[in-house]
C-alpha cells in the first residue's frame, strides 16, 4: 500500500467491507448480501485528492459514506489521523467525525428546506461550541465569503438559491467544523456545465488555502483528471487499479480502466479513438462472478481469471493493478498483499 508519497497518511482505509443483507420471507431471513464494498484499501495523504471512479452501482458512494460511518461498515478499518473510526462509540464519533466532512451530489436534497442558511451554519457551529456569542455572525459571514456567497444570503432559505449556490452552501456547512478531509460525493454531477467549473475552482482554491484533502467520488473522467493527485478505479465493490493521475490516464494497465478511458468523450472531432465496447451488463453485486469480477466482460480474460482472485499488485512504485494478465504476480491468491 504505498501509492502515495511516504508521508503519514491522513486517512487509511484497510479492507473496508459493506454488505447489505438481502432479506426474504415472513421472518426476514437473510438470504444473501449485496456486496456493495468488498474489500477496499487506499490511503489519502494530507492535502491531497484521491479520486474514486467507476460506473453507477460499483460502490463508490457507499465507500464515501462508510468512511464517515453514515453507513456502518461490515468489516475493515478506517484509520483517520491514527484513530480507527470503526471502533469509536457514538459519542466519540460525534467529535472525531468533525474533522471529516461530506458534500453531496444533489444540491436540492442536501439542504433542509425549512432552515435558513444562517441557522444551518449556526447550528453546526453550536454543536461543537465553535465561534460562540458575538463571533458567531462574523464567522458565518466569513464562511459564506470563503465559498463566494455574499453575507445577505445568510437569512435566505435554500429554495431561493440556484443549484451552484446551494452547492456552495453545502461546502460552507462542511467547512464550518474545520475539517481536514472532505468526501466530495459527485459534487458537480447535478450542476450545469458552466457552474461545474466554478465549483471545481472553489474546491481547488479551498484545498490550497485550507490544506484540505479530498476523497473525490466521480464518474466523470475528464474532471477526475483535472482535480486528482491519485485515482482509484472501482468495479463491483473492489478497486481494480490505483495510481497517480499520470499512471491511470497515460499508462492504464487493467482492461476495465482501458475500457473506461476509451469510453470517455474527447472534445476533438478529429480525434480517432479505439473504442473498446464492453459486452454485457455489470453483473449483480448480490452474486458477483467468481475469480476476477470483471472476467465475463473482459476482452483479455484467460481461463485462470475465472478461478482466481487477483489482489492489487504493484506495477511501478506509485501504480497498482489487480489483473493477472497485465500485472501478474507469482502465486496470485485472494489475499491482499500488495507490498
Amino acid at each position, binding site marked *: 500500500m504505498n501509492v502515495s508519497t511516504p508521508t503519514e497518511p491522513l486517512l487509511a482505509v484497510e479492507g473496508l467491507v459493506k454488505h447489505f443483507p438481502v432479506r426474504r420471507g415472513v421472518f426476514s431471513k437473510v438470504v444473501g448480501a449485496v456486496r456493495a464494498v468488498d474489500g477496499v484499501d487506499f490511503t489519502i495523504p494530507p492535502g491531497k485528492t484521491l479520486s474514486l471512479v467507476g460506473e453507477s452501482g460499483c460502490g463508490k458512494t457507499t465507500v464515501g*459514506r462508510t468512511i*464517515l460511518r*453514515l453507513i456502518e461498515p461490515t468489516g475493515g478499518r478506517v484509520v483517520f489521523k491514527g484513530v480507527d473510526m470503526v471502533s469509536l462509540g457514538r459519542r466519540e464519533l*460525534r*467529535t472525531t*467525525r*468533525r474533522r*471529516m*466532512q*461530506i458534500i*453531496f*451530489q*444533489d444540491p436540492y*436534497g*442536501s*439542504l*433542509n*428546506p*425549512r*432552515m435558513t442558511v444562517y441557522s444551518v451554519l449556526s*447550528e*453546526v457551529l453550536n*454543536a*461543537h461550541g465553535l465561534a460562540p456569542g458575538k463571533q458567531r455572525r462574523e464567522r458565518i459571514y466569513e464562511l459564506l465569503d470563503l*465559498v*463566494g*456567497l*455574499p453575507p*445577505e*444570503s445568510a437569512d*435566505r*432559505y435554500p*429554495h*431561493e*438559491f*440556484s443549484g*451552484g*449556490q446551494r452547492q*456552495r452552501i*453545502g461546502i460552507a*456547512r*462542511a467547512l*464550518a*467544523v474545520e475539517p481536514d478531509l472532505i468526501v466530495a460525493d459527485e459534487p458537480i454531477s447535478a450542476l450545469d456545465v458552466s*457552474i461545474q467549473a*466554478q465549483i471545481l*475552482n*472553489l474546491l481547488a*482554491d479551498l484545498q490550497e488555502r485550507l490544506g484540505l484533502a479530498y476523497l473525490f467520488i466521480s464518474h466523470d473522467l475528464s474532471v477526475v483528471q483535472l482535480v486528482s493527485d491519485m485515482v482509484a478505479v472501482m468495479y463491483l465493490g473492489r478497486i481494480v487499479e490505483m495510481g497517480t493521475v499520470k499512471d491511470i490516464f497515460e499508462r492504464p494497465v487493467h482492461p476495465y480502466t482501458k475500457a473506461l478511458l476509451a469510453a470517455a468523450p474527447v472534445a476533438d472531432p478529429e480525434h480517432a479513438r479505439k473504442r473498446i465496447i464492453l459486452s454485457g451488463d455489470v453483473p449483480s453485486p448480490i452474486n458477483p462472478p467468481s475469480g476476477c469480477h470483471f472476467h465475463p466482460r473482459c476482452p483479455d480474460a484467460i481461463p485462470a481469471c475465472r478461478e482466481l482472485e487477483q489482489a492489487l499488485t504493484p506495477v511501478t512504485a506509485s501504480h497498482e493493478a489487480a489483473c493477472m494478465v497485465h500485472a501478474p504476480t507469482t502465486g496470485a491468491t485472494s489475499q491482499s498483499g500488495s507490498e
Partner: protein
Amino acid sequence: MSNPESTIAPSSNPTRHRQGYWRLVWRQFRKNKQALVGLGLVLFLFVVAILTPVLANDVPIIMVHEGERYILPYYTRPAELVNFQYDRWEPSEDEYALRPPIPHSPFRQNLRNRQAAPSSEHWLGTDDRGRDVLSRMIWGTRISISIGFVAVGISVAIGVVFGALAGYYTGWVDVVVLRIIEVMMCFPSFFLILAIIAFVRPSIWNIMIVIGLTSWMGVARLVRGEFLKLRESEFVLAARATGLRDMRVMFRHLLPNALAPVLVSATFGVAGAILMESGLSFLGFGVQPPTASWGELLKQSQRLVADGVWWLVTFPGAAIFITVTAFNLVGEGLRDAMDPRLRQ
C-alpha cells in the same frame, strides 16, 4: 471567487420565503369548494366555542345595577353578585342590562317549562328540566371542540415521539414500537375507553387523556414512515456528519419535514375524538351532568323521543354530524392540497 452566479436576485417579497410551502398548499386548498365550506364551519365553531359565555347566558354582557356598572360580570365575578339571581332580575328605570343573544343559562332549570317545543323564547326548545337546548348546545360546542383538540394534541405528541424513535433508530427500537402499536390497535378503542372510564372519574380532562392515549397509533405509524423515508436524505446525512446530536437531527431536521401528513391525520382525529366523546356521553360515561354536551343531550332524548320530543334528537344530532363532516372535509382538502401529484 467573484462570479456572476453568486449574485442573488433581490427578494421581491420578504414574507414569501417563509411561507413558500404553506402558500402553495393554501392556493390548492382554496380551489376545493367543499373544503372551504368545511373550513368556514370549523372557524364558526371556533368562534362559538371562544365566545360561549357571551353568546348564551343569563349573565348580561354589560349591566348597571344599584348604581354600579359591571362589564362582563361572568368573567369578573364581583363579590357582591355571587348569589345574584340574574334570571329573575328585571332592570328597573335607572338600571340597565345588555344580555347575550341567547339569554338563557345552560344550567338554569325551569321545571314549569319542561320539554317545551321550540318557540320564540326557546328557539330550540327545552329539555326535561326546562333548560334551554340552544344554550346547552352552544356550551356543548366548547366541550366538543376542546375535547377534540386536546385529545388530538395528546395523541399527536405521543405518536410523534414513538414514530420518531422507531423511524430514526430503526432496528430493535423499531420492532418494539411496532409491536406496541400492533397490540394497541388490537383493542377496539371504544370498549377500551369504556373499560378505563369505569375505573377513573369521567371528568372532561380524563376523557381527553383517555381518548388521546388510545388514538396515537396512526400518527406514530405516519411519522415512522416519513422518518424512514427522510433519514436517508442527504440533508439528514449532512446533519449527522456535522456532528449534531440525535435529538436535534430528529426534531429540527426530520420532524418539520414530516409534519404535513400528521396535520392531515390530526384533522381527521379531531372529528374522531368529537364523535367518541358524543358516544361516551350518550352512554353516560362521558361528560357528567350538569355539564352540557351534545352527547348528553342525545342521551336525554332516548327516553323522550317517543313522546314526540323531536328537538332533543334533531339539533344535537345535526350539530355532531355537521361538525364531524366539517373537520373531515378540511382534512380531505388538506390531504389533496398537499399531494403534489394532484397539483396543476
